[in-house]
């Protein structure tokens, strides 16, 4: 059942985005996401939309996959845009009882829905083109300055690595336990929600017991291999910024300044 799970949403390829250093990718994606939310007129918004279209096109990942990732937020998307439609102030273009639609309301709705779509597309293009292990690696290195605040970044990264490593193992185990309990006559597929949740208890208890046993053994195995935290540890995989990273950095800087200029010199339709 769960044999063929893929972790994360990584889509193998060799595009510019795949070749970028994961650290640079995270930084640039975050910058773009911030600037989606400080677009105040259609020119600025259009600039960001164009950028996202280029990113999606460059990723080498089928557009279908991007659209699929929208499915999860479609309800929030509709809900917030409809709500915003009635939210604006000014002269009403149409009204019914206490509900009225204004021009500002229409703008609000358009901006909000486009912002949400862009947000999903940008974050998806990060996860589609980066292996989960590279992501944890990059996060560890990017957060390194937090060590000065006595936050152990290495430990957080190690936890993420181990979690990623054990997800498939624990899924497989859940599968086994469920089969074993079914063989003993457990009924997990019928009944209402409360009954089904109750039926999960005989699965969860052995799963937790085994997870703790695994944790104990893993800790021992790590100690045997001289693990003693992040201090004095080197890494085999070194991350290097390459030319591609600097080209992308340059492109994003140009776009960002474009957005700022549009915001300053062109009339705002959003506040």
């Amino acid at each position: 059942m769960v044999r063929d799970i893929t972790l994360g949403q990584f889509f193998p390829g060799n595009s510019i985005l795949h070749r970028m250093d994961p650290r640079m990718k995270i930084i640039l994606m975050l910058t773009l996401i911030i600037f989606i939310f400080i677009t105040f007129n259609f020119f600025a918004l259009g600039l960001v939309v164009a950028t996202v279209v280029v990113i999606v096109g460059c990723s080498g990942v089928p557009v279908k996959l991007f659209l699929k990732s929208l499915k999860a937020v479609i309800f929030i998307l509709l809900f917030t845009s409809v709500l915003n439609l009635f939210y604006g102030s000014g002269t009403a273009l149409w009204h019914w009882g206490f509900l009225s639609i204004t021009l500002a309301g229409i703008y609000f709705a358009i901006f909000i829905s486009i912002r949400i779509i862009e947000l999903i597309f940008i974050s998806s293009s990060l996860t589609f083109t980066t292996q989960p292990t590279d992501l944890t690696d990059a996060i560890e290195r990017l957060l390194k300055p937090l060590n000065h605040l006595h936050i152990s970044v290495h430990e957080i990264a190690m936890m993420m690595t181990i979690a990623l490593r054990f997800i498939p193992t624990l899924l497989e185990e859940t599968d086994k336990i469920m089969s074993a309990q079914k063989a003993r006559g457990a009924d997990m597929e019928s009944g209402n929600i409360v009954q089904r949740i109750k039926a999960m208890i005989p699965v969860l208890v052995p799963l937790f017991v085994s997870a703790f046993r695994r944790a104990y053994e893993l800790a021992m195995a790590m100690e045997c291999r001289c693990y003693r935290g992040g201090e004095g540890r080197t890494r085999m995989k070194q991350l290097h910024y390459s030319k591609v990273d600097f080209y992308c950095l340059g492109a994003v800087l140009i776009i960002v300044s474009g957005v700022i200029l549009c915001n300053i010199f062109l009339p705002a339709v959003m506040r």
Partner: protein
Amino acid sequence: MEAFIKAEHVSFHYENEDEHQVVQKNVLEDLSLTINKGEFVAILGHNGSGKSTLAKHFNAMFLPSDGKVFVDGIDTSDEEKKYDIRTRVGLVLQNPDNQIVASIVEEDVAFGPENLGVPAEEIRKRVDSALKAVEMYEYRMHAPYKLSGGQKQRVAIAGVIAMEPSCIVLDEPTAMLDPRGRNEVLTTIEKLNREKGITIILITHYMDEAVKADRVVVMDEGKILLDGAPREVFSHVEILKKHRLDVPQATELMHRLKSHGVNINEMPLTASECIKQLEAILK
């Protein structure tokens, strides 16, 4: 031959707290054992004989309650030398799933050297040669959960080799594997011993695996029962039986024939030896 690991009068006990009274459990009792450089030693014993506990004394995971263990001349109770000992003696555990840390094979193999602070290029070299030594190089970019049990255990062995130890202790490495996986792991171990001269200590309860070693140590209730070459150890069929231990099937068969009056001088260890002897008798 040069002694590599020396256990001198080692006792190990822990206290088990029952409802009201404290019960002391003795796992090892006044055990002395010397393991030489380059040897392939199998430690045999059934569950609860203390063989796994002994294995964990060899890399300072456990410290003796009484007595001393020396690895390469270093006392294992020296807290500061703990990591020196663990780079010299690698330990491979029973369940390969619970000792693989990373989600990519080569990164897991790199875990040990990374902990030791080895420079990046050097780690790369060690990882490649360790993966080649266990014949898992083609799988270096794979996710461990997609590998078979035998392959996972070989990755775990590679992870230990990458730390360049002079000795590898394997604590029932084949107990969770199918016959094919067992074979893969055993072949790898034998190769490491013969080609790289790594001292191997194989803890097992399979007689057929013990036969492949240079020396077999049989343990029972925290003590050493027999110690010698496989042929010598398995000729003591009566003693082994008395302590609820098996002998290889071939030996068992010939032992029974002998007790029924068939003239047999030497006990066979493997099926092929047994066939040869039977052929000679039946001619």
